[in-house]
């Protein structure tokens, strides 16, 4: 035993004597994780969160979260002598006088964008592969919570510098609060400490941005990861993989090196973006004043869809009994997003209710093998994409020489028409891909080599695919639709007949599939070839 090994042994012994950690560590250091590029998406979110904590802490050392009005006398000449808030002035100070300050600001902003992109793409991966199914519903809900909080946290973050652009965003947020029936004006006055903009809002959201929400994030992320750990990661179907096992590489040393290395890669790429790609140049926008605005005001992308919904909303207000309800704000700003996020959070339960599938699933679905779920997902994405496009309707109109009216009417009609079309097309595509899989298994791979038969006919030579590939393409389940009773034996309507009818219909739609290839068919066809 070398001296180094002895010391390591002693340290481990010291810790284990006091915690009994050895037993747990022994088991968990060799924990197996399956390998797939799409499993890195969640890691990107985790690492950008760490980057956000680090860069954000740096920024707090100089940022002054105050709306106290001062006269600027700092290093950025074009704004010299202007009235502005201390928050804006300190952001200028960070950008121009603190060495590395601008870099950290840009890293922080880029990391926030990457965090949100990461969450959305990770959510799409989990959704389209069915990783949210039993037993992982809790983690799905935590994930939806993290997405929602991420949107709020990002909005509060870019509101802090108190520049003209972000102040306009706060103004819009205030209008949404003010539009709440009954309590709107009161909540707005409490939140802003009086009339908008006041001097209280930025110090208050600062506390929420740097303390309250990050604390909740930390707690939720911890539970999210512990559940992944405890429940073990899902895996894609493939040779040797079953619902009962996990095939992959051990944590120690392979995943420690890979995951640890990936953190540095994400940080490095974010730093590169912070170095070369200017983001949120607040000194160009000027300090906030409610009487001014710049053309082309845009929120960050994760708020863009919300802004797009607001922009396309019809001009509806109800005035009755001396009161006003602004549907043009409530509908796109609160009601629709509320429905969307509730639906998202409840999706695992809705699907399991509709299909009657209450079993555990650890093998992922290939999206083509669940056409209904995939089509619903693409439908929701289409809805969000039309909203997002409309959130930039002014920029798009200027860039492509359209009128704002054309953009707005495209969105108003598109938001209703395009999602159902996307559903139908996606479902058809999934079924076609299933058919292609079936052909591949039964008839083999097209080689591109032509053969001339004695009778002059040309045929293409097909090569059989490997047993591994054939298994991967056929290992999914094709479940039969539910057949819940609508009438009882005597021909009388069953109580709950309507509900059963609905479930039958949904599960029939979900069970539409091209029959997967079987060994029997393969053998029969081999005889023909």
């Amino acid at each position, binding site marked *: 035993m070398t001296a180094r090994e002895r010391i390591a042994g002693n340290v481990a012994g010291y810790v284990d004597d006091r915690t009994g950690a050895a037993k747990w560590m022994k088991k968990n250091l060799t924990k197996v994780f399956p390998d797939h590029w799409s499993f890195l998406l969640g890691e990107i979110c985790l690492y950008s969160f760490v980057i956000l904590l680090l860069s954000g802490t740096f920024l707090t050392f100089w940022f002054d979260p105050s709306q106290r009005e001062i006269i600027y006398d700092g290093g950025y000449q074009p704004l010299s002598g202007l009235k502005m808030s201390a928050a804006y002035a300190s952001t200028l100070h960070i950008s121009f006088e603190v060495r*590395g300050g601008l870099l950290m600001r840009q890293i922080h902003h880029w990391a926030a964008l990457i965090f949100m992109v990461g969450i959305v793409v990770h959510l799409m991966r989990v959704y389209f592969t069915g990783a949210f199914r039993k037993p992982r519903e809790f983690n799905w809900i935590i994930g939806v919570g993290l997405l929602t909080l991420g949107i709020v946290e990002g909005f509060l973050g870019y509101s802090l510098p108190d520049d003209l652009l972000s102040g306009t965003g706060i103004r819009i947020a205030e209008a949404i609060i003010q539009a709440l029936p009954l309590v709107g004006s009161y909540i707005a006055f409490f939140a802003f400490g009086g009339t908008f903009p006041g001097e209280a809002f930025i110090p208050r959201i600062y506390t929420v941005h740097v303390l309250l929400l990050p604390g909740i994030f930390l707690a939720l992320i911890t539970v999210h990861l512990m559940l992944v750990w405890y429940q073990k990661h899902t895996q894609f179907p493939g040779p040797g993989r079953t619902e009962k096992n996990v095939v992959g590489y051990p944590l120690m040393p392979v995943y420690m090196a890979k995951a640890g290395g990936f953190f540095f890669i994400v940080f490095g790429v974010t730093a590169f973006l912070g170095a070369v790609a200017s983001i949120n140049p607040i000194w160009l926008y000027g300090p906030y004043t409610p009487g001014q605005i710049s053309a082309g005001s845009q929120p960050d992308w994760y708020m863009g869809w919300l802004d797009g919904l607001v922009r396309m909303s019809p001009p509806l207000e109800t*005035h009755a009994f001396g009161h*006003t309800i602004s549907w043009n704000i409530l509908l796109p700003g609160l009601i629709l997003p509320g429905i969307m996020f509730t639906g998202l959070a409840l999706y695992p339960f809705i699907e399991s209710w509709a299909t009657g599938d209450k079993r555990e699933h650890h093998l992922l679905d290939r999206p083509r093998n669940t056409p209904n779920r995939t089509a619903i997902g693409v439908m929701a994405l289409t809805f969000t994409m039309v909203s997002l496009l409309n959130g930039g309707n002014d920029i798009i109109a200027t860039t492509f020489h359209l009128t704002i009216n054309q953009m707005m009417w495209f969105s108003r009609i598109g938001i209703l028409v395009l999602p159902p079309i996307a559903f139908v097309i996606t479902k058809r595509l999934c079924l076609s891909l299933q058919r292609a899989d079936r052909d591949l298994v039964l008839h083999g791979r097209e080689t591109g080599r032509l053969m001339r038969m004695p009778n002059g006919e040309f045929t293409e030579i097909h090569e059989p695919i490997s047993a591994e590939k054939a298994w991967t393409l056929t290992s999914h389940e094709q479940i039969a639709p539910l057949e819940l009773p609508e009438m009882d034996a005597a021909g009388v309507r069953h109580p709950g007949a309507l509900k059963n009818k609905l479930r039958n219909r949904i599960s029939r739609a979900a069970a539409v599939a091209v029959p997967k290839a079987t060994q029997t068919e393969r053998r029969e066809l081999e005889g023909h070839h």
Partner: protein
Amino acid sequence: MSSELEPIKNPGLPAHVHRSTDTDPKAAARAERQVAILFALSALGTLLLIYSYIFIKSDTFIFIPVLGSNNAQQLGLGLGMAIALFCIGAGAIHWAKTLMPDEEVIAQRHEFRSDDEDRAQFVKTVKDGAAAAGLGRRPLIKRSLGVALGLSGLTPLLLLRDLGPLPKDNLQKTSWKPGMRLVTDPGDRPIRPEDLEVGAVAQTLPELAVGEERTLNNIGKDAVLLIRLRPEEFNLTAERLSWTHEGIIAFSKICSHMGCAVALYEQQTKHLLCPCHQSTFDVTRAAKVIFGPAARPLPQLNITVDSEGYLVARTPFTEPIGPSFWERSS
């Protein structure tokens, strides 16, 4: 049908294929060198960062193709940091992929469900606990506890009350009073009708009394846009026409939709456009909404001139300005 057909079998994990670094010591040595080079590059990145921090002046700019003119210090710090971090990551992953074991391992999953006995025991423990506490048998405790907990929930609500004042009529009113002059923003100069040419636009605010400070709260409510057209271009009711002065019409600049500043004026079409959500108002028809999500016209300010010939408000706004709220009556 498919149950009668024999499905394709799981062929099991395919045999492991060794990498060249597993079988060829030369390849392994090469991979080791590559990892070391990446780590060395990372160290160089940190050196670049240190150099930029100490030696590059913060007001030095350099031109880089594609990126344009850049602050040299910020670029040096950022690129140094990016290289330092990225290369550590790339090195570690290259190390893992070429030199660490790559044989796939199979681990078994366990069932999450506890066995029936444990579950029954758990339910029993909860039931016994509840019974021992006697919640069911002692309704008085249950109810009084419910009341106490419910009331204590009011504490945070109550304590948050002092976050701000009550709205009262703050949303209903602005600072405009009869006879108040309109002054330019910025500049605070009073305006005569002849200062505005036909087609011109001016942003104005109410004149301040001596010693008074203007706050952002005032600007957020009082900002008014003046636009001068030829009087015959208006298409207004007689009352609203009387609110204009020699073709000058005044509107609240705060959007009736969500409160952004309605700052874009198209001289040709005489439309005002809010850049936030593209609500478009027709100036000739008292800022009627002709497009977009806004549901109400911009409130018009009744203006005239005072004895010295400066533009003044004849009356305050006759309706609340800005976005809607519950207590708004029209």
